[in-house]
């Protein structure tokens, strides 16, 4: 909780020192004056400033402050230049009391500096009081230990949730945003619910603030969601790696591994048995059969005596065969290279077209935007109307034949988008084909090396002395036995990779279960109850303040998507008159406090409103509003700045019990 105990403002002018020094109580505090421009708002601004939330007013640091703090102060005797101005705010969280000191104008003191005295204003100059300096509005002021808002967060005993910023980076929900729901400022706070909220690049900031104040569980859910999504991408990545490895090794060993899912899925128990490896060329036989065949061949070669004389004719025939194979492989490579060149050209052309179309889409979208912009500026020709004769014209500068239909910009964009999709499809298939051909060429080249070696051995044998050992047979035997070893190793390799996939699949299974559980949580029971309570309070408040723009007030709902009041799914603001809009802001601001107190939410237990009696709001309704604040009792604090300029309001203020009235009189700073 947060309570403001006392505010002391010192303004040193050339003639004297002006002071505002008042204490605030729990419950309702009214800061009154008989007329406008007496300094009420300047006093309230000092509270924003000391808490470092002046962004709600519309800027940072001293520039948002009124001129009394910076340049000139006026009194009955004239206008006096301001030399120095500083503010002290004594706040408490229920147990500890601290005083915040921030200067608005003081030579040699940075306005971004907030000094925290660990005592009340009364004792702050006592020598044993701890003092610490903090900074506001600096990079990382919300997360750095020297950041004032980090101090404030700890002091208030809240843990600010981590939310996503508009550029999808995780950030802390800023305190300024939360205070914008509690402090309603006079100039732009009354134009709508949360209208004073500064833009700090937080995604759905209004929604997040309501969630935080009411203590809804969705935050927990979002956190879990982000954990799950990172787990999901991790699994996908690991899965992809395994598949990649399988693809690389299989082409090296001239094999194909079947029944492997390319994307994460839950595999069944028989997954490992179903994996099947076969030869990638010739007849697609099973790898085991292939190994057996190779072994047979190997054994047969063993029985052959490796002497050249025995198989001179055979050698001759085999050499011819091998040479045939070599030339066939060469011509295959040539063909593939021709195709590869063609595909490369294709890809190049397609990429250029793709870029062109993408640029065209951007330009067409520009034209669409320009058309809308032109319509706003009443350019008739942009809307397909001739500015001279007011007849219909087509949106084209090219000569249009009679009866010819021209595509509208929207149609054109759709048309181009469809073309883009087609091109990207063509690009993808060409790229796939290119990868396939690259692999194929590599494979044939490997084979070619082997064949050439074999041919060389054959030739050596043919020209060698008859009694020599046959090099061909020895080479063949060696290469076959090496192939057998390689294939066996490959099987083992695939086996271990498949086991990895099984493990990943188990993780995937777990992830999907957790995701399903999470979606069930969509709107937790507890959240529903909280929102219903909030809605009840809001509607009750509306009735109390005599909101009349909508005949049936019970139709008003709090939207589950935006937490804003809606009627028939439309923002209630559209149906409200100006004064009813103010009533809605009262009802919403107070509703947040009432609900949060009931359900143990995170509301700081303080609200501050400057001139809530905007537009033609009657004194009766103001009384109802004050009554509902008083009903909250001592457990919260409300500071309201109000001008008492008619007897109705005066009567009400005088009729209220248990309130603290601070009348600033003719001037707030004396």
């Amino acid at each position, binding site marked *: 909780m947060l309570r403001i105990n006392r505010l002391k403002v010192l303004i040193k002018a050339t003639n004297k020192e002006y002071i505002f020094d008042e204490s605030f109580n729990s419950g309702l505090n009214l800061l009154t004056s008989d007329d406008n421009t007496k300094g009420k708002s300047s006093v309230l601004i000092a509270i924003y400033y000391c808490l470092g939330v002046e962004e709600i007013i519309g800027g940072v640091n001293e520039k948002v402050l009124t001129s009394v703090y910076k340049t000139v102060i006026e009194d009955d005797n004239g206008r006096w230049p301001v030399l120095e101005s500083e503010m002290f705010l004594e706040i408490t969280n229920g147990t500890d009391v601290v005083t915040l000191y921030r200067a608005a104008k003081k030579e040699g003191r940075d306005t971004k500096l907030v000094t925290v005295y660990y005592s009340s204003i009364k004792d702050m100059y006592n020598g044993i009081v701890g003092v610490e300096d903090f900074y506001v509005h600096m990079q990382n002021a919300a997360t750095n230990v020297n950041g004032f808002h980090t101090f404030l967060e700890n002091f208030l005993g809240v843990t600010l949730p981590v939310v996503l910023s508009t550029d999808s980076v995780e950030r802390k929900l800023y305190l300024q945003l939360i205070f914008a729901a509690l402090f309603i400022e006079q100039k732009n706070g009354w134009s709508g619910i949360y209208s004073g909220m500064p833009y700090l690049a937080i995604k759905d900031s209004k929604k997040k603030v309501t969630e935080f104040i009411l203590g809804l569980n969705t935050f927990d859910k979002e956190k879990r969601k982000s954990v799950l999504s990172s787990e999901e991408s991790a699994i996908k990545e690991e899965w992809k790696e395994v598949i990649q490895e399988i693809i690389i090794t299989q082409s090296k060993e001239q094999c194909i591994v079947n029944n492997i899912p390319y994307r994460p899925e839950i595999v069944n128990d028989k997954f490992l048995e179903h994996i099947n490896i076969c030869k990638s060329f010739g007849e697609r036989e099973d790898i085991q059969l292939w190994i057996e065949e190779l072994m047979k061949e190997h054994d047969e070669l063993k029985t052959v005596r490796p002497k050249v004389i025995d198989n001179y004719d055979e050698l001759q025939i085999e050499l011819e065969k091998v040479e045939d194979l070599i030339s066939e492989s060469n011509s295959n490579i040539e063909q593939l290279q021709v195709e590869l060149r063609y595909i490369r050209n294709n890809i190049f052309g397609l990429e250029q077209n793709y870029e062109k179309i993408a640029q065209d889409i951007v*330009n067409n979208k520009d034209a669409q935007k*320009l058309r809308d912009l032109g319509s706003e500026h009443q350019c008739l020709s942009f809307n397909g109307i001739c500015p001279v004769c007011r007849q219909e014209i087509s949106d084209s500068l090219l000569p249009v034949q009679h009866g010819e*239909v021209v595509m509208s910009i929207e149609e054109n964009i759709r048309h181009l988008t469809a073309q883009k999709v087609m091109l990207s499809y063509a690009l993808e298939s060409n790229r796939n084909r290119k990868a396939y051909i690259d692999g194929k060429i590599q494979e044939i080249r490997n084979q070619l090396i082997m064949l050439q070696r074999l041919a060389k051995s054959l030739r050596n044998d043919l020209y060698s002395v008859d009694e020599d050992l046959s090099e061909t047979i020895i080479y063949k035997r060696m290469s076959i036995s090496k192939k057998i070893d390689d294939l066996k190793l490959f099987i083992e390799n695939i086996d271990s990779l498949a086991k990895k996939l099984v493990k990943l699949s188990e993780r995937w299974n777990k992830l999907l279960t957790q995701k399903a559980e999470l979606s069930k949580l969509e709107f937790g029971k507890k959240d529903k109850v909280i929102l219903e309570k909030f809605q009840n309070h809001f509607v009750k408040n509306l009735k109390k303040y005599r909101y009349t723009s909508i005949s049936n007030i019970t139709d008003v709902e709090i939207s589950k998507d935006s937490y804003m009041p809606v009627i028939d799914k439309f923002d209630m603001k559209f149906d409200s008159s100006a004064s009813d809009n103010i009533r809605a802001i009262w009802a919403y601001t107070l509703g947040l406090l009432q609900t949060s107190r009931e359900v143990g939410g995170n509301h700081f237990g303080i609200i501050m409103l400057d001139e809530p009696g905007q537009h033609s709001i009657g004194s009766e309704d103001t009384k109802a509003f004050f009554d509902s604040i008083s009903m909250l009792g001592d457990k919260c604090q409300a500071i309201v700045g109000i001008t008492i300029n008619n007897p109705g309001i005066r009567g009400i203020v005088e009729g209220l019990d248990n309130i603290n009235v601070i009348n600033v009189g003719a001037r707030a700073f004396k």
Partner: protein
Amino acid sequence: MDGINLVNTDIIFDSKPEAVPYNYRISYKVSLICLSMALCCGRSGCSLIKLQMLSNAVSNPETKAQLLGFLNSNLRRQFLVRFDPVVNRALDFCIVDNLIYQQANGLFRLTQKGKDFSAAIKDDKDILKIEREILDKISLNLTEDKITELTDYWRNINATN
């Protein structure tokens, strides 16, 4: 040969709507003219030739380089200007839509409405990004004097006695 009548009914051909390139859209060209006048013309006004040159320069990188080369060199006097009828037609729309008016000396200027419109375009940083970059580069360098010099050169180049 006995023909088999496959088609019993008449065949009707419907013309499909024709796609129009973005730079032939009224909205695009008119906006571009307004923007180029706002970015590249001083107070005196802007001639038709200048509008043609600017419009051609933003249409592709090659023509852009040509125009910038012409502007940056004092020696080059020859420059081929492509007269695009589309620009003339767009200019007609600008005039009847009250975005641009023609002064007594023949030069064109933006009306208040035209100025407001081009200010609105300038405010939206996302539209006409590339065009804006080129026009900013050209800025006020393409003066009317330079254009007069160019047209004088045309007049004299093939003059024979």
